[in-house]
């Protein structure tokens, strides 16, 4: 008689998985990245602290680049269209992405936004992430480049307190240099902190309000 081995009731067994809990996001990010490549679109994910000047930087960049590129800007925020209204004044396509309560944009939200966009007509997409120096670093969106904005008004320790997001960036912008003296914060010191964490990053000082330093940011992103 053939011997049959069966699972007993209540049998306990292990399932080997090795599945990343961020896999869903990574899959969407990969899909987005492929879509950008197929349509030959340059993409930048702009992350940074609240009030550091992400929107001001985007406005200043858009002003200089809109003749050269067909640009769309995706503005991420918890709520309101304040940022996208500001950018829209410069005559480029804008989409506001409101996350509700989430502290970061994720690749799925970007993928949804892309569904409504005429990708064939575009050659540059700038994504403004939710203001936060922690979570956005963990969620790749599929953008080709990642830029982090901080400003001198946040004090001299912003970089060392949030090393992880600076590891993710290829360009770091230190904004509001016009206020550096009043804040008693040195640009060179902040720059040195970034270089100690991520020596590959390009660090640029700006004063977006006065339109200073923007061409160097554009150069660092290979957009000039």
């Amino acid at each position, binding site marked *: 008689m053939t011997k049959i081995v069966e*699972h*007993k*009731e*209540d*049998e*306990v*067994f*292990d*399932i*080997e*998985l*090795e*599945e*990343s*809990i*961020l896999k*869903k996001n990574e899959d969407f990010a990969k899909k987005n990245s492929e879509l950008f490549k197929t349509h030959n679109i340059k993409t930048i994910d702009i992350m940074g602290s609240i009030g550091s000047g992400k929107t001001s930087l985007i406005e200043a960049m858009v002003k200089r680049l809109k003749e050269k590129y067909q640009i769309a800007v995706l503005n991420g925020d918890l709520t309101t269209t304040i940022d996208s209204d500001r950018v829209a004044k410069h005559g480029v396509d804008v989409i506001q992405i409101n996350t509700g309560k*989430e*502290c*970061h944009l994720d690749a799925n939200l970007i993928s949804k936004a892309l569904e409504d966009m005429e990708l064939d007509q575009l050659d540059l997409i700038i994504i403004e992430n939710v203001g*936060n120096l*922690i*979570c956005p*670093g*963990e969620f790749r969106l599929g953008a080709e480049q990642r830029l982090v904005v901080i400003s001198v008004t946040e004090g001299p*320790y912003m970089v*060392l*307190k949030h*090393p*992880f997001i600076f*590891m993710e960036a290829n360009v770091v912008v230190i904004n509001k240099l016009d206020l550096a003296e009043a804040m008693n914060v040195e640009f060179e010191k902040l720059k040195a902190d970034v270089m*100690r*964490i*991520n*020596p*590959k990053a390009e660090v640029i000082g700006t004063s977006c309000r006065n339109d200073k330093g923007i061409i160097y940011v554009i150069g660092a992103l290979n957009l000039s």
Partner: protein
Amino acid sequence: MHELSMASNIIDIAIHEAKKRNATSVIEVNLVVGKYSMLGLEQLCYCYDLLVKDTLLKNSKLNMEHEDGKIHCDKCKYKGPIPLKEELEYHIIFPTLVCPKCGNPAEIISGRDCYIKSLRVKK
């Protein structure tokens, strides 16, 4: 800050796998957490315990194993732990991507991710 959605991801994956193999309950979830992932582990456990109620994972245990960060230097081929620097004045210890051997920029090769290594389930 996003521990709730991550805990929810863990539970979704576990339920999906358990159902695929006709398991009736999940007893243990074995998680590997990179030292450089941005998850707060206490919050993660707290959210997990809240979310497992009324699921196949009810009363299950979330075990966590830590994974150290590693870097790789393309130039001198160094492969090893992420070097740490100290700023004693401010009590800050921060990681650096500067290669400890040759000083060139290095890449992170592990320690950023958080993944489910295995599940223990009941048939």
